């Protein structure tokens, strides 16, 4: 039986979610001439740069050290000379400190210190190794992975879920990774399970990726405690809360973390990065990202962290049409970029280019109470009512009616026939409620 959750939508059905352009494109390596690496790619305090202009750095060398409790280091993703260290406008609201490195083309690694094989690596050292490798959630959340791997006092975890749902539109990076490098993913999962002393590992994949399901099932054959869960193809199946609900039939309590449902979720790409860090000692310096939409050769690229959008788009053949909007991620939750000089980060699973026509804002019309948003909301809120409260500027009322449980998945806005920007409204309201402590 296919696992699922209540609510949700089937976005871009007529386009097959936009994945058709790239799902059969093998991963291609791409190394740019120059990278510009932000030091604030993860959630938490930005790391502190420890190199200066003119320094020569090797591939994988630490260029910024962790700050604060949940900080992680940042590594050079090419070898070469540091050109600049300073603020640049990235995806955030304010400028980020970035370290710019000119690639000397040698790809000369620093000395690596692997921990050992999947079975021999000492379990108590894995978490530190993951931290030192600068790994954070590669599905988009950018939460430092080693924190997730440390179970706080009084909590327990019985299941690790690897998220291979990839329910977002257009993206095929995780799909290709599962198809081409299943061993890295399985190794990563086994290392996580050993480090956290958890005996159940589940790799969850949507049933629109039948080939990936088959490959992963082969890769885990003979391994105890690990299985593949087949999910119904539906957005937002890969949303952490929906995924946990579908796979374990447990819900993450409102305002709590997945660990309160005794589950920890990692993206498949994160698991692969963890395997590299432990088995080969390699820090996180590259990732697979899908570059698609209005580009000449839509591709799945393995790019170095800090590659500019411009370089990545050129690696995919350049623009095929005059671009009107470019976002990092799929069309449901992707973040718009102000210009193509912005860098790809550890969490960046895709670049989608829309043409001028598709970028035009749809003019909203009055709500007709059709109930599409109510049906779609995976958090089981009443978006129509919340929107009416927002029109009255009633933030307290919105909070009372659970707007803080909104995951900003965009399902309500997507289905709205009146084209009302429900999701954007709730995102703004949530920010206001947090800031003003309503």
């Amino acid at each position, binding site marked *: 039986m296919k696992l699922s959750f209540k609510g949700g939508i089937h976005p871009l059905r007529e386009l097959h979610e936009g994945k058709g352009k790239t799902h059969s494109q093998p991963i291609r390596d791409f190394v740019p001439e120059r990278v510009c690496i932000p030091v604030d790619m993860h959630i938490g305090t930005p790391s502190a740069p420890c190199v200066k202009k003119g320094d020569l750095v090797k591939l994988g060398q630490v260029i910024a050290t962790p700050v604060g409790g949940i900080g992680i280091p940042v590594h050079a993703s090419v070898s070469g000379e540091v050109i600049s260290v300073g603020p640049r406008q990235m995806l955030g609201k304010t400028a980020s400190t970035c370290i710019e490195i000119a690639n000397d083309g040698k790809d000369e690694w620093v000395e690596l210190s692997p921990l050992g094989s999947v079975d021999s690596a000492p379990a108590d050292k894995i978490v530190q190794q993951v931290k030192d490798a600068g790994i954070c959630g590669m599905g988009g959340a950018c939460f430092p992975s080693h924190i997730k791997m440390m179970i706080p006092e009084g909590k327990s975890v019985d299941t690790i879920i690897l998220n291979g749902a990839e329910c977002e539109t257009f993206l095929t990076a995780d799909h290709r990774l599962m198809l081409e490098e299943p061993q890295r993913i399985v190794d990563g999962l086994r290392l996580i399970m050993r480090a956290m002393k958890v005996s159940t590992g589940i790799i969850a994949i949507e049933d629109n990726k039948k080939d990936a399901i088959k490959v992963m099932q082969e890769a885990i054959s003979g391994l105890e405690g690990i299985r593949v869960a087949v999910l119904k193809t539906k957005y937002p199946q890969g949303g952490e809360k929906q995924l946990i609900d579908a796979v374990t039939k447990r819900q993450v309590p409102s305002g709590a973390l997945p660990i309160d449902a005794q589950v920890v979720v990692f993206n498949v790409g994160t698991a692969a990065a963890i395997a590299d860090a432990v088995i080969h000692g390699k820090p996180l310096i590259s990732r697979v990202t899908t570059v698609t939409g209005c580009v000449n050769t839509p591709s799945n690229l393995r790019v170095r962290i800090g590659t500019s959008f411009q370089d990545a788009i050129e690696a995919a053949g350049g623009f095929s049409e005059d671009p009107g909007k470019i976002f990092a991620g799929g069309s449901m939750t992707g973040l718009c970029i102000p210009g193509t000089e912005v860098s790809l980060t550890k969490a960046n699973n895709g670049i989608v280019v829309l043409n001028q026509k598709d970028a035009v804002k749809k003019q909203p019309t009055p709500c007709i*109470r059709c109930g599409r948003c109510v049906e779609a909301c995976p958090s089981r809120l009443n978006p129509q009512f919340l929107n009416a409260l927002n029109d009255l500027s009633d933030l307290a009322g919105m909070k009372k009616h659970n707007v803080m449980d909104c995951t900003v998945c965009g399902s309500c806005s997507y289905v709205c026939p009146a084209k009302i920007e429900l999701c954007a409204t709730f995102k703004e309201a949530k920010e206001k409620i947090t800031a003003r402590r309503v």
Partner: protein
Amino acid sequence: MKLRLSTGPHLLNRESTQTLMLDVLIALVPTTVAGIYLFGTKAAWVLAVAVVSAVLCEYLFQKLSKRPVRVMDLSAVVTGLILGLNLPAEAPLWMPAIGSAIAILLVKELFGGIGQNFMNPALLARGVLLASWPARMSVYYIPARVLGVTEVVPAGTDVISAATPLIRPGGYQLYDLLMGNIPGTIGEVCKIAILIGFLYMLFVGTIRWHIPVLFVGTVAVMTWIMGGDPLRAVLSGGLLFGAVFMATDYVTNPMLKVGQVIFAIGCGILVGVIRMTKAYPEGVTYAILLMNILTPLIDRWTSRRVYGMVKKHA
């Protein structure tokens, strides 16, 4: 390069208010065609006047009150057509005109336009006409033609008035009830056409099955309890038309599924009660209108469990 910035989602469903209304109009095609076939050109005139005056009223009101003109969303066309289908074919042509004006101006636009009316515009207009000109509104006519082959009703030469089959149950065969060879309003008589429209709307996802099925089902059960013939009760009068095309009006029924279930069963019970007490031969109009009025209360009283509202795991 100037790039547009916005919060996701960046690509939206193709469905719009206009496409939804167009789907309702497509679903009304079989009923409209059957009505015109059965009752002749008089019916076509009633429908045409109803639609044209509904659109005209909306356009003029929005123009004069300097609001955005929204006639292209087709909702006025739907209102006008549904009102027309709710009238007897013999209605004088000023009746659909007045009805549409009431529906659009009084019920819809004065309350703030599309999405703001608290009762179904076409239905309230029908209610006003029914209360104002009861004689003209409650005398039904036998269709001028028959659909299919029948032995009971002769292919009429002149339209003659007759009691509705609700008053004289058992007078018509099921076949005639289904095909529409019975007295009634233009749209309500041909049940086959209504069912085709219902299936179309289910298929394209315009509506869900809950409201029509539970509404009609409740009436059937009530009739059975009171010793009547459930099938005949369902196929008589305006029940099917009301349940499929009027109770399902988005604006005037509850938002949550649980609310819609209460709404539908409430409609069914009211129809049963009105038919039982024989205060009116036809209770569907007032049943739905009453439940329309209760909709805000139902919305207030119903809720569903939000994700994560669970007891914390150990």
